[in-house]
């Protein structure tokens, strides 16, 4: 991506949820007085059991859902009054199911869809398409019909189509579902690149390993509010395992191995290996 294109990504805003509650029309209380603040450029994984309110939470960021109580603020501005189409320029959301999103006859046209809606045309549009395809490893599929692709590649395409919008906030809903190890690594690199460009990245996930490896902060949700919030090393530390398990979550394997070996909190492969090397430097 050129410096000029990257520069078009406006600075990420501060996000604040102030006592946000939301109930669906059938009476399901999805969010219950939730408070959360996300600073510009943070990478945040939102985890929790099914029905804990994760997807409902992120849909409040682009106005698809409006709180029944409380406020969602971006740089102090209440998003309740902002049109969804306008918020789309600031918040890109890749949905969990790519088939609810893909609508074009080719990969290129699919990726162009979002930026075109934002008024991007010409060379800049081409550049964005190329960058997004490169980011998800679909550069050779420009003319392929999305419905001729397998699920995992359709999922990557859906992510690419949102990446190309260059929104300061990028939200990925269950991005690793259906991905093999290479696909998960690809999504991880997308998160890292977006964060390096100063974008705020928020992912809803059930994949604890992905959350620990790729995000600087993990928010655990339970019953519509925040149960745990902190860096992976804090959230996945052994004292918090009962709370994680109460939310139907299991700590990632390196965290369990590190705790069993008495190495402290080692939520990622890298931290576990580093702790092991430190333990036995002569074999490192």
């Amino acid at each position, binding site marked *: 991506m050129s410096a000029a294109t990257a520069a078009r990504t406006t600075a990420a805003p501060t996000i604040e949820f102030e006592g946000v509650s939301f109930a669906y029309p059938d009476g399901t209380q999805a969010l219950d007085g939730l408070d959360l603040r996300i600073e510009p450029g943070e990478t945040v994984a939102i985890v929790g059991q099914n029905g804990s309110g994760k997807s409902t939470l992120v*849909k409040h960021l*682009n106005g*698809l859902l409006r709180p029944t109580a409380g406020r969602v603020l971006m740089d102090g501005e209440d998003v309740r009054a902002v*049109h*969804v*189409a306008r918020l*789309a*320029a600031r*918040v*890109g*959301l890749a*949905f969990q*199911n790519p*088939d*609810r*999103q*893909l*609508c*074009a006859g080719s990969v290129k046209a699919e990726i162009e*869809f*979002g930026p075109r*809606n*934002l008024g991007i045309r010409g060379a800049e549009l081409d550049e964005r398409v190329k960058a997004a395809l490169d980011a998800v490893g679909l550069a050779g599929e420009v003319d392929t019909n999305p*419905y001729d692709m397998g699920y995992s590649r359709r999922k990557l395409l859906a992510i690419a*189509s*949102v990446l190309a*919008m260059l929104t300061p906030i990028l939200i990925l809903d269950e991005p690793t579902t259906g991905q093999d190890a290479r696909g998960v690594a690809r999504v991880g690199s997308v998160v890292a690149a977006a964060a390096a460009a100063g974008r705020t990245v928020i992912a809803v996930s059930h994949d604890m390993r992905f959350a620990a490896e790729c995000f600087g902060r993990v928010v655990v949700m339970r019953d519509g509010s925040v149960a745990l919030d902190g860096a992976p090393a804090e959230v996945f530390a052994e004292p918090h395992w009962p709370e994680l398990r109460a939310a139907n979550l299991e700590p990632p394997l390196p965290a369990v191995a590190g705790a069993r070996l008495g190495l402290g909190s080692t939520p990622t492969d890298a931290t576990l290996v580093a702790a092991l090397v430190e333990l036995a430097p002569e074999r490192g």
Partner: protein
Amino acid sequence: MERSPLVPDPGSAASSPGLPRNLGLPEYVTRRPSGFYRTLNPATKLAIAALEVVTVFLVPGWLGPIAVLLVLAVVAAASHTARALAVIGLAASPLVISIMVVNLFILPGAVDPIFRAGPIAPTWSGLWFGLLTSTRLLVFSSAVALAYVTTPVDDLLADMSRRGLGRRGVFVVGAAVQMVPRTIERVGEIMDAQRARGMDTEGRIWRRARAIVPLAAPVVFGALTEVEERTMALEARAFTAPGRQTQLRVPADRSRDRALRWAALLALAGVVVLRLSGRVG
């Protein structure tokens, strides 16, 4: 040893005398509807709905629709479905409005204008015909909707299967009945996904028109994909295997159901015969 979900825990409330025995079966198996209309057999409700529809359209003038409307109002109040029927009526409002406008202004042969303003001349005949047609439409849709909202699809399909419709026929009916709510749900999700990518569905009319393709394509392709997946899932679970299938739940078919069904079918036949013989209308 892990306890089978079908065996109740001896110490649990489910095993206590006097309490319903929930054997860990899914809700669609153990569900027990309450209230007179809801507990009717699905075939009985279909027969009643058929009688109502025929009465609405074959009994001339206001008598048919008004009589059925009164029956529906009582049943809807008793079965707590008035709100659902009101929503369905609201959904039909664009059609009702168009019927009213067309009949009010261009009913063929109408020569009794309410007023004249240049070429615009709404007529009394058009007004009454539009009201009657709209009422028939609303009562007809309410009659069908009442049977639909008070009958779980599983019960309808189980009853049809028991009556020998055949598994392919049951599948076709089930897919058709479930298509509308599934499509509505899918359209909602697709609209959210496209709005999240900046598609304007709330702006000017030409902008909304442009949104049709990005909405329609995933709806159609998604539906086709779903059909394929459902077909394979059914095959994988021996859908076409020979032999009789086990029914997990069979809706009750009591003597009152049979009496009501026969009464409804006889009344239906009576309305048709009277109409054809010219004794009504």
